[in-house]
């Protein structure tokens, strides 16, 4: 099916992501930053849908916006934020940090302006999909990437044990 109004949706969701990102790094209240990050993640899931990646969009909404951000909000509840909101918000190396980030931005602009001819002009590869997206991703996950899949589950086990040990009162 042919997409409609692609530039409008791209700029809408890109604007939502950038505004959400700016709100994340500038808000004094961490709860406001967490909510802005949730908006950014949901807008990014919409961009994934525009890039014909519905499974990654679903994983992003369920895992990232619905799991990781809820974990962040629980921890923000546990640590007291009233005292941290009264202090200075930006640390003493902010000028050097902004200069370094501007240098990195200049590097990105230089690389992308020099190399923009190597990307093809069309955004989409008009090949008909042999199978639905979830089925194709699953064929890849259980095929060539089987080892990485098992290692990822081992990583999650280690992370669970680590988080429980870290947060215990007495080890």
């Amino acid at each position: 099916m042919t997409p409609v109004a692609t530039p409008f949706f791209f700029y809408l969701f890109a604007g939502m992501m950038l505004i959400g990102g700016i709100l994340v790094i500038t808000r004094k209240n961490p709860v406001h930053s967490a909510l802005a990050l949730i908006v950014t993640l949901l807008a990014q899931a919409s961009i994934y849908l525009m890039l014909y990646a519905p499974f990654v969009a679903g994983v992003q909404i369920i895992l990232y916006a619905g799991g990781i951000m809820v974990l962040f909000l629980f921890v923000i509840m546990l640590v007291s934020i009233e005292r941290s909101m009264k202090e200075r918000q930006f640390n003493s190396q902010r000028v050097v940090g902004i200069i370094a980030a501007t240098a990195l931005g200049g590097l990105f602009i230089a690389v992308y302006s020099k190399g923009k001819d190597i990307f093809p002009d069309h955004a989409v590869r008009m090949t008909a999909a042999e199978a639905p997206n979830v089925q194709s991703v699953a064929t890849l996950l259980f095929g060539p990437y089987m080892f990485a899949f098992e290692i990822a589950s081992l990583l999650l086990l280690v992370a669970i044990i680590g988080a429980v040990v870290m947060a215990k009162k007495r080890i």
Partner: protein
Amino acid sequence: MESMLHITTLHYLVLGAALFLLGVIGVLTRRNVVIVLMSIELILNAVNLNLVAFSRMSGGLHGQVFAIFVITDAAAEAAVGLGILIAFFRNKETVNIDEVNLLKW
């Protein structure tokens, strides 16, 4: 104006780079540890956007599988990082990373 209306791969890459820069600024300039951790999540999301954009450009789905693994890794890292934060807060009663200076000479 015509080039801005036709959305190519480069548009997605520039958006990913802008998000990456916002995450880097957040990590380098904020004092609150929770906001630093959230800026790290912004960086990981920018990388994911690049991966999925290149996967769309090349036609294969390897970039999307890689993005799923990055999301899994971000979940594990967020859990461990927040556990460390809770342990740190239990010791010092502050979420200010400027106060993590016991190893400073």
